[in-house]
């Protein structure tokens, strides 16, 4: 490989991983955009999704990509129940109270998973784990290519949902003008429950895709919450396209850090990017200027 191809190779891998990050971040962004709640348990939900896919794999022998509908549905119902039973009561509470509630949820999820699965690392080996496509001088892992396709397809599906279904538009209306939503008689708390469910399902789906490339332990959650948060801030709070762009960008930056410095420094690269964006565009790349 030529040196330049070496970078291209890293960039492509970064884009593929970044699509999965984007899937995760889109969920966080949707929840924040509509409900103005930061889901501090988002990474833990991703980890729950990873364990879910693991469980489906060892019991049913199902490929994690095919497990997405099951895991996403379970996580959706979990999100709906969580919003209905707990978060709805804190929707108008000051932010520090919401923060504590969601940190509590994160702790319960982490320790619950620890109790059920123990602290050992688990993984899922799909039959095509070591296969790759050869495209010109590049070798692309099948796993990453399939994951990226699945993630982008799901993001496209969400886009269609929000722009072409009545429920999706109603959720956007809540985000756009909450009082207006009440005025026209939208059932705001029901729409919030659906929104939180969708956000949790995004995290769960991303978990199904990540379990194929990294081992899962119950304590991974916090790092991924931070990752998703970084992506959403870089892309612009509440913007779905921003989350997609931010995810791809972070994926590429991590991959570049891996070859330019050393892999263990990849998150400092991401935070450097975050600081840069905050300095140059405080509202994120695609964020609206706050009035």
């Amino acid at each position, binding site marked *: 490989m030529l040196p330049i191809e070496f970078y291209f190779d890293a960039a492509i891998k970064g884009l593929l991983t970044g699509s999965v990050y984007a899937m995760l971040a889109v969920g966080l962004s949707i929840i924040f955009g509509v409900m103005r709640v930061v889901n501090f348990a988002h990474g833990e939900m991703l980890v729950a999704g990873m364990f879910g896919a693991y469980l489906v794999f060892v019991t049913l022998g199902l490929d994690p990509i095919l497990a997405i509908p099951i895991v996403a549905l379970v996580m959706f119902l979990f999100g709906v129940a969580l919003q209905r039973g707990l978060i709805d009561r804190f929707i108008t509470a000051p932010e520090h109270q919401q923060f504590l509630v969601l940190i509590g949820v994160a702790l319960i999820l982490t320790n619950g998973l620890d109790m059920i699965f123990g602290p050992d690392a688990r993984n899922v080996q799909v039959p095509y784990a070591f296969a790759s496509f050869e495209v010109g001088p590049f070798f692309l892992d099948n796993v990453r290519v399939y994951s990226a396709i699945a993630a982008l397809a799901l993001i496209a599906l969400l886009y269609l949902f929000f722009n072409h279904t*009545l429920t999706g*538009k*109603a959720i*956007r*209306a809540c985000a*756009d*003008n909450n*009082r*207006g*939503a*009440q*005025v*026209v*008689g*939208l*059932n*705001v708390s029901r729409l919030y429950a659906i929104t939180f469910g969708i956000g949790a399902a995004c995290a769960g789906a991303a978990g199904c895709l990540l379990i194929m490339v990294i081992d899962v332990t119950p304590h991974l959650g916090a790092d991924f919450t931070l990752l998703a948060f970084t992506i959403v801030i870089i892309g612009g709070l509440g913007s779905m396209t921003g989350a997609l762009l931010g995810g791809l960008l972070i994926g590429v930056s991590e991959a570049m850090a891996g070859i330019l410095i050393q892999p263990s420094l990849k998150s400092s690269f991401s935070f450097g990017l975050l600081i840069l964006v905050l300095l140059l565009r405080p509202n994120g790349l695609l964020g609206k200027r706050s009035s």
Partner: protein
Amino acid sequence: MLTIEAVDLHYGDAQALSDVSLTVEEGEIVAIIGANGAGKSSLISTIAGIYRPTRGRITFEGEDITGWPSHLVCDLGIGQVAEGRQIFPSMTVRENLEMGAVIPRARKLAASTMERVFTIFPRLAERVRQDAGTLSGGEQQMLAIGRCLMGQPRLIMLDEPSLGLAPTIVQEVFRIVHQLNTDGLTVVLVEQNVVGSLKLADRAYVLENGQIAMAGSGRALLDDDRLRQAYLGL
């Protein structure tokens, strides 16, 4: 049609409505007037189920709806054009109208009602794809009224529909309110334009500091010396 009995409303410790009672009969136009901060918008929001009264009873067609959430109140046929228009600025005109018809009572009729809204407000028809936030103030007000009609209301509450509009547009809004009433809608109208709304109204209530201070027919209140002094400076 609508009865409000001895309603109190508090925001935390502050009392916004105190012992408010009023009735609206089917087919009427009832005006509610009062100074800034008198509690007019609070009253509208309380009827709509956005705020929950701390005391008293609200009934609509004999059904006790006190404390019902807004989506159920809307679905009974109580629509409102809220203070500040409350449109969805980053959604298109068409999407805004669609949102007016999400409530179950209106969903099936959405397409035909939208046609009707476009005949009342041809300007909206020309701008279906435009983001509502980029409409002019008058167009936004038309959109707010149109969106309310999408919900098949039987009673429509308008909170200062003429605010910020040029005099000719105000005349137009009043004409439309009158027309809607003639077509069978019952109307509750909150207005700063005291003369205009009293002329239009069958009956009116005057709110002062959260209490009903006067009530009577629109004509009688227009001739009332105390009201003329307080609100018209005559």
